[in-house]
């Protein structure tokens, strides 16, 4: 019997790894992948809480999070394609048109 706290610890670990990746990577796609990792860590903790409290609400929220993640991936990758067409790079240090 694995305690639910272990799942929560694993989720915290995955989230921290994703945070580090989102902060350090310069390739836009890799930053995106790190964000997907963070979303997944949050999903894991939601399912773990659903298990702990014997409720379905957490699982329903995870379902919605997955749908939103799919939409976000589609729009984000389309944006990357559009940016690449204009600037010939997706290095996030060089995509600084909106920096003030």
């Amino acid at each position, binding site marked *: 019997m694995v305690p639910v706290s272990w799942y929560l610890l694993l989720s915290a670990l995955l989230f921290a790894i994703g945070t580090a990746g989102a902060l350090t990577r310069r390739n836009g796609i890799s930053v995106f992948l790190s964000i997907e990792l963070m979303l997944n860590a949050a999903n894991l903790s939601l399912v*773990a809480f659903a298990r702990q409290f014997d409720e379905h609400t957490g699982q329903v929220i995870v379902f919605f999070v997955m749908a939103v993640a799919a939409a976000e991936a589609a729009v984000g990758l389309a944006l990357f394609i559009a940016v690449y067409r204009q600037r010939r790079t*997706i290095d996030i240090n060089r995509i600084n048109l909106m920096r003030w």
Partner: protein
Amino acid sequence: METLVFAVFAFLAVASAIAVVAHRNPVYSTMSLVVTLFSVAVLFVMLGAPFLGVIQVLVYAGAIVVLFLFVIMLLNIQAEEMPQGGQMAQRIASILGAVVFAGMLGLVFWRTMQPNSPPLTEELVSLRNLSRELFFEYLLAFEMIGLLLLVAVIGATVVARRPQQADTTEDWAASGDAPRVDGARSEPHINPETGDRVAARAGRS
């Protein structure tokens, strides 16, 4: 037995997550992400959410990751160059911050959770109860998600659409005031200060 399965897949998830973050080639990062998603799907099943495990494999590993791979190969992204100069300090600082963050988050979780969780009930695992909750209590949110996906697909298509070809705008070009639609070959449209760098990069690859 359950502890062993958890240990194996937790280790697999963390190791491949580190590979996602650490690898310089985005294709390998994406492949490692598939391993992480599969491991998390197994953990979902162990937590009494088999439906979410299946959805995870189908939607994430099956659709989203393929989308990522498609874009990576479409754009022909090279592995990142090694970070130069001040990047190293940023990297160390963010890793340190991530470790502290994980420690704090883990501590909070550890403190709040009681060590023994209730046994897995049949109501939690059953798909019927989950769907009843989804289609009765959260019906509006479900419909909204469908609308959101529709809007996202339309938006993505519009954003990623290739700009109109020049042959459709020949009349405009002849009349002198051509609309600026030839974004695909738009070196003059690029910001002048970065235009030379862009041209140099395009020439190198």
